[in-house]
C-alpha cells in the first residue's frame, strides 16, 4: 500500500508540472497570423485601384439593385487593389469575407465584420484588399453563406491589363461582370416583401 501511495502523490506532482508547461505551450502556439497569410502587408504595392460597391442583402449581394441579378462576378488583374464599399440593404447583420480559392475556405479573411457594419439600412463601410494571387477568389457573407456568395477572378496582369482602366468605377459592361439569375424562391420572397412593404405604407 505504501509504495502505491508514494507513486500516486509523486504522480500528482508530475501531472501538475506536465500540465503547467503543456497548457502554456498550447496557449502560446495559438494562431496569430491572419488566416494563413491572407493579411496584406503594409509594404505590398498595387498597380490599379478598382471600386466595387456591394449591397448587403440576405437574399444575395446586390439583390434588387441591378435588375434580377445577384452576386456579381468581379474580374480584376493581379496586383489590383479593390476598394469594397458595402452598403447595408436589409436589417440583418452581414460580413464581407474573402478566400483565395474557388469555394469557402478555412483560410479566409473577414474584411468587414458584423460589428463594423451595423444593421441600419444604408450604413456604409469601406474596406480594401490587394489581390496579388492569380486564380479564383471567393467572397461571401459568413452569416448567409448559401445566398450571399460570389466569385472574384484574379487574372494574370500581362494578358488583361488592357481591359481594366486604373482608378475606374467598376460597372457591369466594362469588366464583364456576369450575374446569376434570381431563383424563383427569391422572387417569391421579394414579392412578399414588396406586398408587406405596401401594406405597411
Amino acid at each position: 500500500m505504501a509504495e502505491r501511495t508514494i507513486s500516486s502523490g509523486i504522480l500528482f506532482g508530475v501531472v501538475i508540472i506536465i500540465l503547467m508547461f503543456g497548457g502554456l505551450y498550447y496557449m502560446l502556439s495559438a494562431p496569430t497570423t491572419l488566416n494563413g497569410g491572407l493579411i496584406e502587408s503594409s509594404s505590398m504595392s498595387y498597380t490599379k485601384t478598382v471600386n466595387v460597391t456591394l449591397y448587403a442583402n440576405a437574399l444575395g449581394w446586390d439583390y434588387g439593385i441591378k435588375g434580377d441579378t445577384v452576386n456579381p462576378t468581379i474580374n480584376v488583374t493581379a496586383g489590383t487593389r479593390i476598394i469594397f464599399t458595402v452598403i447595408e440593404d436589409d436589417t440583418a447583420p452581414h460580413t464581407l469575407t474573402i478566400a483565395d480559392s474557388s469555394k469557402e475556405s478555412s483560410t479566409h479573411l473577414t474584411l468587414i465584420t458584423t460589428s463594423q457594419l451595423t444593421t441600419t439600412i444604408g450604413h456604409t463601410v469601406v474596406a480594401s484588399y490587394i489581390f496579388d494571387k492569380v486564380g479564383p477568389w471567393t467572397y461571401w457573407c459568413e452569416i448567409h453563406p448559401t445566398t450571399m456568395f460570389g466569385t472574384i477572378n484574379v487574372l494574370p496582369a500581362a494578358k488583361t491589363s488592357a481591359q481594366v482602366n486604373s482608378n475606374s468605377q467598376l460597372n457591369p459592361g466594362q469588366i464583364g461582370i456576369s450575374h446569376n439569375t434570381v431563383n424563383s424562391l427569391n422572387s417569391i420572397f421579394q414579392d412578399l416583401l414588396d406586398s408587406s412593404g405596401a401594406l405597411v405604407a
Partner: protein
Amino acid sequence: MSTTTYLIDVSVTISIIFLILFYVYYKYNSTKSEMDKIAEKTDYVDTGSYFRDAIGGKNKSIGMSAFLLNDAKSIGVRYIITSIIFFFIAGTFGVIMRVSLVEPTPTLFLNRTVLYDILTTQHGLLMIYMWALGSALGFSYYLLPTFLKVKKDSMGGYSSAAYWIYILGGIFILLSRTSTRWYFYPPLSLNLNPYNAGGFNWLAVLGMEMIFVGVVIAAIVVIKMIIMDRDENVKIEQMPLFAWAVLFTLIMLVASAPFFMLGLAMTFYDFFNPIFFVSSSSSPLSFTEMFWIWGHPIVYIAILPQFGLIYEIIPKFTGNKIYSYASGVLALGLLMPLSELVWGHHLLNSGFGLEWGLFFTTASFLVVIPSAITVFNYIATLWTSPKIRLTVPMLFVVNGIFDFIIGGITGVIQSNLVLNEVLHGTYWVTGHFHFIFLGITTGIAFAVIYMLFPSLTNGRKYNVRLAHWHFTLTAVGSFIMSMGWTIGGFYGMPRFVAGYFARFQAFQDTAILGGVIVGVAQLFFLANIFVTYSKAPSIASSNALEDAYNLPAIESGGE
C-alpha cells in the same frame, strides 16, 4: 496551420479523452455491479458507501481510486485534485502574462498580442470556475458529511456525473483558446475567425454550459445533503457555520446561474443565426445584464464558502468558540440576497440611467454591513482568545482577513457612481479582486489543504519550512502585486491590454515583481508535495478540521 487541422487536433484529443473515460467507466461499472450484489446480500442501504467501505475504509487520500468511487469523500478529493491542477495551469498563464508586461511595448508577445488576450481569458475563466468554484465544491463534498454526521451517502451517481460534465467543460474551455474575456460579450464572442483566437469560441461557450450543468447538479446534491441528510442530532440552528455558508452559496448559485445559462444558449444560437444580441432589434447590452446577474453572485460564491471555512479554522488554533454564532449566520444570510441585487454596479458606465445607477451604488454600499459583521466576528474571536497558535493555516487566515479588508474597501470605493467613471476598466478593479481572490479564496483554500494534509496524503505531515515559505511569499507577493495595480489603476492604468503607456511602468514593474513572487511561492507548495511523498506515512490519517466533529459523537455515545 489551418482551422481544419485544429479541428482535427481537437476532435482527436476529445475522442481519446472519451475513450479513456469509457474504459474507466467500463472497469468501474463491472466492479460496481459485483459490489452491488454483495451489498444487497449484506443489507447495505446505500451501495455506494458499501463500495467505499469494502475497498478499504473511508477512502480520502489523493489517488486514482477517488475517481472511481462515488461516495462524497471521494468526489470531494476529485474536485480538490483537479482544482489544484487547474490552479497551477491558470497560475502559469498569469505569471507569463505579468512577465510579458515588462516593457511598455509588448516584448514577449510582440506582433502577436492576441496571446495576451488568450492568457487573460484562460487565467480568469479557469481560476474562477475550476479553482475557486472547484475547490469550494471539493471542500463541501469532503467536509460536510463529517460536519453534519451524514450517515449514508446518496445521489453519488449524480454527483459523479456532475463532476465529469464539469471537468469536461473545463477541458473544453482550455482547448478552445478563446479570447473573449470571462464575460463572453457579443459580438466579440460571436467572432469565429481563427485570428483573434476566436475560432473556437463555440467550444468555450459549450464548455461554459457544461460547467454550469455540472455545478448546478452538484449544488442541488449538496443542498439536499445539508437539508435532508443531516443527522437528527445536528439541528439546523446548530449547524456548523461552514454548512450555513455552503447552503447560502449554493442557493445563490442555483438562483442566478439560469440567467447566464440562458444567455450562453442564446449566444450559441447567435453563432448560426444572430438574432438575439447583434441584430437591429436587440442589443449586446442585454447580454451584459444577463451575464452580470450571474457574474456578481459568482464572485460571492468564490468567497462565501471560504468565509465559512475561516469560522471553522479559527477555533482550532485559538481554543475558543466563534464570538457570535448568530451574527455569523445573519451576516452570511444577508450577503446572499444583497449580492444578488448589486450586479448593476459592473455596468454603471453602460448608460442605463441615473436611477439604476443610484440603486446599485446604494445596494453595493449595503453589502458593507454583513461583510463588516463577518470581519468583526473574526477579529472579536481572535481578540478574546487566550492564545493564538500561528501555524501555517492560521497565518493564511490572518492574512486573508487583512487582504479582505483592503480588497473590500477598494471595492466599495469603486462602486461609487462618480468614482466608477474614473476607475472602471482600470487596474484598480484588478487589484481589488486580486486582494480578495488571493487573500480569501486562494489563501483559505491552501489553509484548508494544509489542515487536511494528513488525510489527503494518507498520513503524512507537510514540511513546515516549505509551507512557511509558501505562505510568506504568497502573502508578500500578492500584496505587492495587488497594491501596484490598485495605485496604478487610480492613476488610470487600463487593464486587459498587452501594452501600456510608459508613465505606468513603475506600477507595472511593481506588479511583475509581486506576480513573480506569487508564482515562485506556489512552487514551494509543489515542492512540499514531492518532499512529503518521498517519506513513508508517519501519523494517523485524521485531520484537525474533522476530528472536532467526530469526538463529541463518540463521547456522547453517538452512532
